[in-house]
């Protein structure tokens, strides 16, 4: 059953050095506040998993929290490159970053396999691509009925999945809606689940296109209004497109980046 905890306690209790951590949200409901708490607590040596690493992982990588990244598209959506991600991969700053790189279809299916507790998933994917040459988590299987060869991807089962949602009730049942991305799968694939929410309510009113994670699948809920900023929570906040554009110059330069993180993350709370 989910405990309702402060973000600080929840992160300290659930996320440890060396963990494999998935922080999901497909451009919507990205758990930025939780990432900032991870940075403040100095948790490190993480294997970070995420389809679209995005500004949230640019920050974690730039602060040296990650030793490995599992992903399928690493850019600042609609803006350009992730400079901290590139600097880590190209120059090893602030530390080298190992990569396990997939396509979106492959990553989505890795989570599906993880949520289903199967060791792998099958898809029609990667055919002719060089991606399998660089990944040990892409292989093939042969259909026992037709003889066709298909791609196989290894399940992802994070130690911890962190997501942001619109709301939870006091029992810790979580509800999210709008672009629901791969959050259900990422949560169900993990050993531990931390959810930050915009609001804690007495009762979860049913909503169209909503995903509900029952309390007994969640480890902790933390009440963090606007916890997705600069991403957003449909019905509560709007996407701060200007921040995403501003991130480009902030993150281009190591010192500018560090100064920004110091001011807005390390010294905030």
């Amino acid at each position, binding site marked *: 059953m989910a405990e309702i905890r402060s973000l600080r306690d929840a992160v300290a209790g659930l996320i440890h050095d060396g963990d494999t951590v998935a922080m999901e949200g497909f451009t919507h409901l990205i758990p930025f506040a939780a990432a900032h708490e991870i940075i403040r607590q100095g948790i490190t040596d993480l294997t970070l998993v995420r389809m679209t690493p995005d500004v949230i992982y640019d920050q974690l990588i730039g602060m040296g929290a990650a030793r490995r990244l599992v992903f399928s598209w690493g850019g600042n959506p609609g803006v350009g490159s992730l400079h901290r991600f590139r600097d880590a991969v190209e120059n090893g700053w602030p530390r080298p970053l190992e990569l396990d790189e997939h396509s979106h279809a492959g990553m989505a299916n890795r989570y599906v396999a993880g949520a289903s507790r199967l060791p792998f998933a099958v898809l029609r994917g990667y055919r002719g691509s060089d991606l399998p040459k660089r990944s040990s988590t892409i292989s093939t299987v042969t259909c026992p009925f037709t003889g066709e060869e298909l791609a196989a991807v290894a399940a992802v089962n994070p130690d911890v999945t962190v997501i942001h949602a619109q709301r939870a009730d006091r029992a810790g049942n979580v509800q999210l809606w709008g672009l629901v991305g791969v959050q*259900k799968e990422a949560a169900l694939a993990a050993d531990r689940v931390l959810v930050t929410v915009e609001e804690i309510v007495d009762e979860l009113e049913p909503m169209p296109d909503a995903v509900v994670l029952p309390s007994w699948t969640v480890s902790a809920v933390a009440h963090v209004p606007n916890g997705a900023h600069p991403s957003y929570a*449909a019905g509560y906040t709007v996407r701060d497109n200007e921040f995403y554009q501003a991130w480009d110059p902030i993150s281009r330069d190591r010192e500018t980046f560090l100064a920004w993180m110091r001011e807005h993350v390390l010294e905030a709370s």
Partner: protein
Amino acid sequence: MSDTTNATPAAAPDGAARDWTPDELMTVNAARALHGSRTCFVGIGLPSAAANLARRTSQPDLVLIYESGTLGSKPTRLPLSIGDGELADTADAVVSVPEIFNYWLQAGRIDVGFLGAAQVDRYANINTTVIDRGPDRPEGRLPGAGGAPEIAASCGKVLMVLRHSRRNFVERLDFVTTVGHGSGPGDRARLGLLGQGPVAVITDLGVLRPDPETAELVLTEIHPGVTVEQVTEATGWKLRVAGSVGVTEPPTQAELAALRALKSGGEPRA
């Protein structure tokens, strides 16, 4: 990827004054290429602008499908990212990301996939992963595959839209992220790829299409004011040119007005 934009009328290749930019013509031309398609899997940036323009002009029933999980989005302005709330709010249905890839894309239900690229070769194969910067320098990092390998594999056909330069149109890809026509005719069938693959590469200079015999990209159309030499010059391999090269119809006033209205909500970049 941060492409340099080619967005000022004054920068038109032949220096003639026009009331549209090469970028606008590229987008308009890409929108026209959607004619006759019912469903389109849309990448963000130039593809999104073109697909939305098509829906605003000749293809009002075009169904836009975004990898963020929206079926039938009808945004009133161009989204900056595939996660803009409006894509969900205006959709016929919102589904999970695994579902969009497994039940909708992989199943071969989508007529057209619309892709950008960092590097493309003569067989319309795509690299969006890494750039070789020479023996003494580490590989340059690109964003990665995203949805592209399976979009190119599974859609009925693929349109590509990117700006024309020797940096983008290369003799040899540093990494094959996404297969277009592989190493030539028959390769898609051998690899078990479902759709017919790239049918047009639309750039700010003209349009390349695969030769039906060899699958190699051939220059079939140039934009008004552009010369064939400008295009071959901007291509990193010895570009074949069709026997008769057409000239793109300039944007109509209606197309331009619709495109500018869409963009007034914010210029999307790659």
